[in-house]
């Protein structure tokens, strides 16, 4: 069966520090991969998606970036965090007509 791992679960970082969140998928190949952000009390905002290795599409201009160095690995990064980057970050995968399968999320607090 397929599983998705996302870490860390929680993270507290000072403003201006770098960020790296990692997501890996097991049990499938060539998935579409997504990063969403959920601000407190709000819906999901699509940040990035990827349909293959090295292929990244950005939905919202910001100081975040994403990379897909391997087929089932998706990384969200920032060189310098802002207070507004605080939120709940969710990684997800899908294939073909399947619905999205989400990781358990990372709660990021920028102080």
């Amino acid at each position, binding site marked *: 069966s397929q599983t998705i791992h996302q870490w860390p679960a929680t993270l507290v970082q000072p403003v201006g520090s770098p960020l790296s969140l990692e997501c890996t998928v097991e049990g499938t190949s060539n998935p579409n991969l997504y990063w969403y952000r959920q601000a407190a009390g*709000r819906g999901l905002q699509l940040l990035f998606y990827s349909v293959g290795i090295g292929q990244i599409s950005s939905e919202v201009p910001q100081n975040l970036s994403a990379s897909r160095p391997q087929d089932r690995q998706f990384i969200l990064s920032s060189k310098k965090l802002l207070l507004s980057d605080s939120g*709940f970050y969710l990684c997800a995968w899908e294939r073909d*007509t399947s619905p999205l399968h989400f990781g358990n999320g990372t709660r990021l607090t920028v102080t």
Partner: protein
Amino acid sequence: AQSVTQLDSQVPVFEEAPVELRCNYSSSVSVYLFWYVQYPNQGLQLLLKYLSGSTLVKGINGFEAEFNKSQTSFHLRKPSVHISDTAEYFCAVKKVTGGFKTIFGAGTRLFVKA
């Protein structure tokens, strides 16, 4: 472009009462429809999906939804809720053709009271 409107941001209901969470969507092309549930500090889990066929879709935990193409709605229902159903519920759509992105509504917080 597609959009999803969840008509209620919060729905309080007593335990064992029926509930309906409303969802309307807008799209110029055919879409797949989904309902997800999110418990506190967790990712989203799929409740049910409509891809094609019967417009009444049954999901997990006793939930069901009906696809109404003429009204572009996909309302979620449960005949009798439990305390454990307290969570955030998201309606979502994805294009049938070339649909790389799932578009979510803003969510409805269901609060079940004893």
